């Protein structure tokens, strides 16, 4: 397999999708590398039932979510260590936010947005990221997520409801 050709064709989409999840360019670079290594290693498993691009985006979604879980584990471990008086690696969300596509004047509001999106369950977050951030249709999002269009619609509605509740709590 010519990994170079695939890389040059899909690198920007993969990188930007990873950034939509992670909001940090170093994390997004790591995920991008992991995605193309995975594509190279599992190319034989691609059965052609969906488009090649859909398959790559699905891998990107999964690798991004894995990275977020790893980040959250570090956060929890740091909290535990802080109770024992030991120093751990803490992750301050505002400091961690390092999206190269965000202008300085917009950073504050987007950090807040990311903060509440970050609290959504994985499937709701993915539905929001694909349909609102990546501007995919619900049909495309459904194909990437391996679910029906109706399920995507339902996830987006639930995500919005969750976001509304979190905003209410934040105001109180």
């Amino acid at each position, binding site marked *: 397999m010519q*990994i*170079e050709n695939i*890389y*040059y064709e899909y*690198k*920007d989409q*993969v*990188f*930007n999708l990873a*950034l939509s999840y992670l909001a940090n360019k170093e994390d997004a*670079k790591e995920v*991008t*590398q992991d995605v*193309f*290594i995975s594509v*190279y*290693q599992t190319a034989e498993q691609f059965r052609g039932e969906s488009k090649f691009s859909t398959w790559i985006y699905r891998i990107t979604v999964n690798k991004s979510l894995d990275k977020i879980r790893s980040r959250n584990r570090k956060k929890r471990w740091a909290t535990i260590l802080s109770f024992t008086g030991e120093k751990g690696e803490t992750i301050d969300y505002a400091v961690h936010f390092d*999206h*190269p*596509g*965000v*202008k300085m004047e*917009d950073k504050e*509001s*987007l950090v807040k*947005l990311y903060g509440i999106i970050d609290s959504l369950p994985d499937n709701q977050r993915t539905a*929001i990221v694909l349909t*609102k*951030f990546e501007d995919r249709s619900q049909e495309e999002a459904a194909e990437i997520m391996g679910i029906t269009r109706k399920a995507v619609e339902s996830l987006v509605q639930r995500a*919005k409801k969750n*976001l*509304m509740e979190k*905003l209410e709590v934040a105001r109180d």
Partner: protein
Amino acid sequence: MKQETNIDELLSQWTKVDKVDAPDYLLTRIKAKIENQVNDKLTPGFAISFGLSFILLIIFQVSAIKQTKETNSSASVQNEFYQSNDIYND
């Protein structure tokens, strides 16, 4: 409905984010990692040969030990036979 509009407005802030180009140098890193992973893996043939050799070595060692024990045992029986014959020769 007003709250939903607020959420949509909040989410629409994402339109302020620009798409960026992925760095080209990542391809070099990707290729290096793929290369390292290939070198780290044992080929199946090598693993099987190594495993079989190890098993044969153990079998050989066990049979050698058994052989030695049998030889020692028959030698001691012979010794006893000669010793018992010596009694009659005296």
